């Protein structure tokens, strides 16, 4: 378990490191994908099948493709000057702040939960029942949000076509 964990953690971190060290944007996007895959494998090694497969399906199948498309459509190529933007200090502060908050939350939660070695036995079936049972309202709200986003996207696309003609 621990060896697998360290291997996967190394893979995830290497992907994340490569994502911001590589100069080529598409390479960076592919490196992020490696990091996503590492995270999915981490979920799977914790017996969280649903989270793991959803991670692959959504992050590798959709988000990575979206990122790659965005890069290609904005015609970004290898930057000529350095990779540091002018606002790197602000970025650093925000990143450090987010990391601190997340780390604090994780460390706090460790104290709250009693230590137990039992693997949580939550099957996909239970997640499904919970989603359409207890958490049906959040699910519906998310569905509504996504529908409105889709309609918005369609409207944006329609306007462009009318302007073109």
């Amino acid at each position, binding site marked *: 378990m621990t060896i697998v964990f360290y291997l996967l953690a190394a893979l995830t971190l290497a992907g994340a490191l490569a994502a911001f060290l590589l100069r080529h944007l*598409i*390479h960076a996007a*592919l490196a992020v*994908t490696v990091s996503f895959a590492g995270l999915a494998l981490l979920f799977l090694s914790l017996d969280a*099948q*649903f989270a793991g*497969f*959803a991670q*692959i*399906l959504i992050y*590798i*199948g*959709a988000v*990575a*493709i979206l990122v*790659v*498309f965005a890069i*290609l459509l904005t015609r970004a190529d290898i930057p000529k000057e350095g990779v540091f933007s002018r606002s790197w200090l602000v970025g650093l502060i925000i990143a450090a702040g987010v990391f601190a908050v997340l780390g604090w939350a994780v460390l706090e939660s460790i104290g709250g939960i009693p230590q137990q070695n039992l693997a949580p036995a939550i*099957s*996909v*079936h239970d997640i499904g029942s919970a989603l359409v049972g207890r958490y049906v309202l959040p699910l519906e709200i998310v569905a509504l949000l996504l529908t409105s986003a889709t309609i918005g996207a369609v409207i944006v696309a329609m306007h462009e076509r009318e302007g073109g003609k």
Partner: protein
Amino acid sequence: MASNLDQIFILLRNWLVGFLPTAFRPAAGVLLGVVAIVCVFPGLFALTTVFERKGLGRMQNRLGPNRVGPFGFFQPIADGIKSLTKEDVVPFTANAVVHFLAPLVLVVTVFMGFAVLPMGRNMALVDMDSGLLFFFAMGAATELSVFMAGWSSRNKYSLLGAMRAVAQMISYEVVLLLSAVSVVMISGSLSLPAIVAAQNQYSGIFPHWYVFTPWGFASCVMFGIAATAETNRSPFDLPEGESELVAGYHTEYSGFKFALFFLGEYLAMFSISGLGTALFLGGWSAPFSFLSVVPSWFWFFAKVMTAIFVFIWMRGTLPRLRQDQLMNFAWKFVLPFTLLDLLDTALWRFLGEGWQRWVFCTAILLVAYVAMSRIGFRRQHIGPRSYRYAD
């Protein structure tokens, strides 16, 4: 005897694993299963290529391969030797690492999908709680490999082909998922062996396959359309339409890497046919109850090969679509119809046993189909073809 023959591969595996100390047995069992999958499906691929070329030749009134061996049946061996010994050309401007990785990622992710397919009674490599989700997750990962291939080649035809492929795969993946959801709604499980077991019942001599219900038939047809598009087969083979894009995203691949792409495409066909078989055609269950003496794995492979034959038949029959037709078809016909079919499935689930649900569900689907195709045709202005520059 019949049950021994049915379980012959399981018994064989247990016998082989029995030679090892107990500690290594589970790992060795899994390893044997992987080796079997890695050997059987490429072998089937070799057979299918020659059958496809023979079959297409027959449909187009020509002979097909007929030089190597009796009736040209050793053609795949010659092809294999050819692609192994061919020079592996990598374009000078290509992005070498990504260019090298793309075919590997494709073949590996496609092979992973086979892990959850039930190929016979007790013959799924991994009986996962959420096998269907795993299969779709692996299918989603293949899109990235197609993009990697097209982009890293630094060739406009490759990139255009890859963009077409990704757009097409994303559009039809929605349909693929939604048509599988209706089966999940009825069987109440994401595990493929459980879905097959739910269909392995008989009324009289007739099986309870989902394709024999109104909603199941509709989703099976939609699944078939989406599967054809997802595997880039004709009539949805725009990403590699040779008259437009040379060979699409694998234009710049030669030698064994090209063979890997070819292998990946056919393996994807096998795995998606296997999934369709498990979801709608009862997996390994026999078509009539009295045929259950025939081993279950025989039925699985027979159904997969029938699906492959349909793929080849469509390739020999239908002309290629245009890009806008492809997208319109996906978003304006197939997707709405699949969504309606989901509602129909829910209705089927809650109308209870009896003849009413057969009548209601069939009527809804038929009316919707006729109405949608009428509306779709009204928008089209079909007339004699006009040429702008070629007159």
